[in-house]
């Protein structure tokens, strides 16, 4: 595969691998090739003809995207082929293509949302004519419905078919097609049904013109008005790289950034379209509950009331961290709880049996990380999914699993039988089927014979009462099939909450003698727990907090705030520089794109202020000092953007507690993909998507 072909591109000699296309080879030589239909991550269509280059000696210009370098017959005299990307013939060919493309293009750039970031606009500057020679009527195409996310203005479409190929190849839902032909060709979904993919928003980025644009963002802003901030997504535990575009105090849109190790260049619809939730249901003032109603108060008053509530013995305090809590605020909360003597601390609001062994000691990091790393999926040669629906738990990760399946990697599933966009061998629904996986079972043998077997254990299997036993069984299975070797660790836990791994790394779990989330709730009802701090914890049943005083620190008026007695308004993930640890154990940091709303403050600063009011002032005055302490106490936070992967020195499984498992089937952790956190629940776009998803898929509606 290392064989190369020598080419001369515009006078520069390049050695291009035989698998390269001529377009890639030209780029090796430093040439810039215009293109519309070609995309690195999609199959080659060769239908826009914009990438024409002049192959010296060839009778016609060559579409460089569709010419594989290895297929170019060597010249008789052995000299390398000469390619010219700048010769008059190449330029004239491209000018001609551009003129044809513009014949039926409406040229409505002033009212087009793509204006300013449009490939056609940019390339027309380079290859277009000053005026049109076409005097006939232009073609008009009916706009199509593609759902609540993708707005279509199909007259602008140049039929590059990138969206068709993305839907079929990456998203795995064959829903977009090119109907009719010739002048009547039009992109459509079947009978204009909405797209059902969780990755559908990516077609907006892929569309080189303004035919597919973002519906929620329509006519809101121009790209040059926006302040771009590179950040990290917290909608799931992958920590996809995003760019937050804001104007003034408002986040206007969220786009993906390239991070090959996590999301490549895709993001899920929840990540992309959740931004309208950042402006709704916001807590912008501190509140105190009086006579059953919440009254806006000053910070001083709110912190005094909260401090008064914390003047109880440490055993009567419960602390629960939610799914969006950042490491800094959890560290501050943990330090505060420690100084108050609180032992009932938990970051696992879903009740996952992770992080703690039966005797209350901490489990090794390998027991709750995605050890193979997300990129490791590309190396795996047999995959088993247990109690996980990656399509909902981590939609972008599912695209990578699908790519593995396209490489003919066998995938097997224990859990719910759902459409994952690829075929899989179905072992069974619950723990009983895990027991069947022994020598002689085809799936077991498949995994055993694989060089790099990979098991993904989902939260659906861990949040059950017997979660610790499932963890034990699956980690033993991983050891039995040889998934844990010197150079490979194929035992993976896929988290659904951005905060979870950070919390487990910090030890945000009950201290010996403390209660977990279920215990705190029971204690609150029985009166054992008098005060509960909710650090953005909204996915618990807040009606079961009895008569306890509830201090809610968070950004949105959701379940937690509805039950709270004191509300301390905090910043959302786009409003603070905060550290999150993704499911691989990769420490990443968000950046502030806009300021917190109203009187809201960064979470850690609120806890620092509260600590002064309770008389246990925390030893840090800035986030820098806090991070220094964080790194000192927990060395895993020292390095940024690094996935530990397999270190070779980890603790071998089994993890968890060996024990009997119930036979009830595994349930998917995420039932409504679009409504998993307070920001998403505040978003109108997500509500619309959720309604549609519930209507489209009866399996979800029945739940």
């Amino acid at each position, binding site marked *: 595969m290392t064989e190369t072909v020598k080419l001369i591109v515009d006078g520069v000699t390049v050695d291009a691998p035989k698998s390269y296309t001529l377009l890639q080879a030209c780029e090796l030589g430093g040439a810039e090739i215009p293109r519309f239909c070609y995309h690195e991550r999609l199959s080659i269509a060769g239908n826009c003809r914009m990438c024409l280059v002049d192959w010296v000696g060839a009778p016609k210009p060559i579409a460089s995207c569709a010419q594989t370098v290895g297929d170019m017959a060597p010249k008789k005299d052995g000299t390398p082929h000469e390619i010219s990307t700048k010769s008059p013939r190449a330029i004239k060919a491209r000018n001609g293509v551009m003129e044809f493309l513009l014949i039926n293009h409406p040229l409505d750039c002033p009212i087009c949302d793509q204006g300013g970031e449009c490939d056609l606009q940019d390339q027309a500057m380079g290859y277009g004519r000053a005026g049109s020679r076409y005097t006939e009527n232009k073609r008009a195409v*009916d706009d199509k419905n593609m759902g609540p996310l993708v707005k279509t203005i199909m007259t602008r479409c140049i039929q590059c078919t990138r969206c068709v190929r993305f839907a079929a190849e990456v998203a795995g839902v064959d*829903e*977009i097609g090119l*109907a009719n*032909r010739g002048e009547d060709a039009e992109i459509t979904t*079947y009978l204009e049904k909405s797209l059902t993919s969780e990755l559908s928003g990516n077609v907006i980025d892929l569309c080189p013109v303004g035919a597919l644009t973002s519906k929620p963002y329509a006519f809101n802003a121009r790209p040059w008005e926006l302040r771009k901030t590179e950040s990290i997504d917290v909608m799931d535990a992958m920590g996809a790289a995003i760019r937050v575009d804001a104007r003034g105090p408002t986040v206007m849109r969220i786009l993906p950034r390239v991070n090959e190790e996590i999301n490549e260049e895709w993001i899920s619809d929840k990540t992309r379209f959740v931004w309208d939730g950042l402006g709704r249901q916001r807590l912008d003032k501190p509140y105190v509950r009086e006579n059953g109603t919440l009254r806006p108060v000053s910070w001083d008053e709110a912190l005094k009331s909260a401090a008064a509530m914390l003047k109880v013995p440490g055993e009567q305090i419960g602390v629960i961290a939610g799914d969006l809590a950042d490491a800094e605020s959890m560290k501050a909360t943990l330090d505060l709880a420690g100084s108050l003597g609180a032992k009932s601390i938990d970051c696992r609001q879903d009740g996952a049996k992770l992080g703690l062994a039966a005797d209350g000691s901490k489990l090794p990091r390998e027991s709750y990380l995605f050890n193979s790393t997300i990129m490791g999926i590309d190396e795996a040669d047999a995959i088993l999914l247990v109690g996980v629906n990656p399509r909902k738990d981590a939609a972008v990760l599912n695209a990578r699993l699908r790519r593995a399946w396209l490489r003919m990697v066998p995938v097997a599933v224990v859990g719910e039988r759902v459409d994952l966009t690829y075929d899989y061998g179905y072992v069974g629904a619950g723990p009983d089927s895990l027991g069947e996986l022994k020598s002689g079972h085809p799936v077991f043998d498949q995994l055993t014979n694989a060089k790099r077997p990979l098991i993904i254990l989902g939260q659906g299997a861990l949040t059950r009462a017997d979660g610790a036993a499932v963890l034990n069984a699956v980690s033993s299975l991983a050891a039995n099939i040889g998934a844990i070797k010197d150079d490979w660790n194929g035992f993976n836990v896929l988290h659904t909450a951005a905060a979870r791994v950070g919390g487990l790394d910090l030890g945000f779990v009950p201290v010996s003698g403390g209660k977990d989330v279920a215990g705190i709730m029971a204690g609150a009802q029985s009166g054992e727990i008098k005060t509960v701090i909710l650090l953005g914890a909204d996915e618990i049943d807040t009606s079961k907090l009895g008569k306890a005083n509830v201090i809610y620190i968070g950004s949105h008026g959701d379940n937690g705030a509805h039950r709270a007695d004191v509300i301390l308004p905090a910043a959302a993930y786009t409003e603070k520089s905060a550290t999150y640890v993704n499911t691989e154990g990769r420490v990443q940091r968000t950046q502030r794109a806009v300021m917190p709303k109203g009187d809201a403050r960064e979470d850690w600063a609120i806890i620092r202020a509260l600590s002064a009011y309770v008389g246990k002032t925390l030893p840090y005055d800035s986030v820098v000092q806090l991070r220094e302490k964080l790194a000192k106490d927990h060395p895993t936070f020292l390095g940024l953007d690094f996935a530990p992967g397999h270190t070779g020195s980890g603790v071998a499984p089994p993890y968890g507690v060996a024990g009997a498992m119930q036979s009830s089937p595994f349930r998917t952790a995420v039932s409504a993909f679009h409504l998993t956190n307070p920001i998403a629940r505040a978003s109108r776009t997500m509500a619309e998507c959720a309604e549609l998803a519930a209507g489209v898929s009866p399996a979800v509606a029945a739940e």
Partner: protein
Amino acid sequence: MSHRRFHHPENHAPFAFNKESDDLIAWWERKYPSERRASAVIPALWITQKQNAGWLSEPALRAVAERLGMTYIRVYEIATFYTMFNLEPVGKYHFQVCGTTPCQLRGADKLKDFCERKIGPKGHVSGGGKFSWVEVECLGACVNAPMIQINDYYYEDLSIETLEKLIDDFAAGKEPQPGTYVKRQTSAPEGAPTSLTDETLYDGSRAKPLAAILNAPKPPEESAAAPVKA
């Protein structure tokens, strides 16, 4: 062609393959490996269209997709690409009038006007569900221009008079003979052949004994002794 798509698919009647279509599609499917049986999609659509009174309804298209393990949009792409698939109801006798240059030069425009008067607008079903017509591109029978394909057969060398008679015959329940409607043998010159008329071409009198077979391999002994003159 205007945009070909389903109009009001919610009104389409349900569809199920009958035994005959089922067997025919199965025969086509067997030509391909089972994981590639989508290759049979064009014949399958054609068979389905035959069963469904000459057009593909939305349920019929879905039936084909499910039968071949394809997604609906992929079958829809094919059905909209090929004009031989009708996405709207057609008459029992569906007239495809060729309007391409040779036919146009020989009077296809008049035939189109006549169809419009007699049958109605393009794509419109009339005569109690008996007739419909569309204009199509070249059907490859230019030598017999102008021509119309009615269901599966070509009716050639038409004039307004012969076309009217054709329509009347179909309306009366007769099955007119396909082929040319002037006095000629298939695509031979009108009236009678004008070349190759010499009787001796056909009576065998011109036949002569063969001296040698051109380019035939030479027998090894004879080739050296007696070279054959070509």
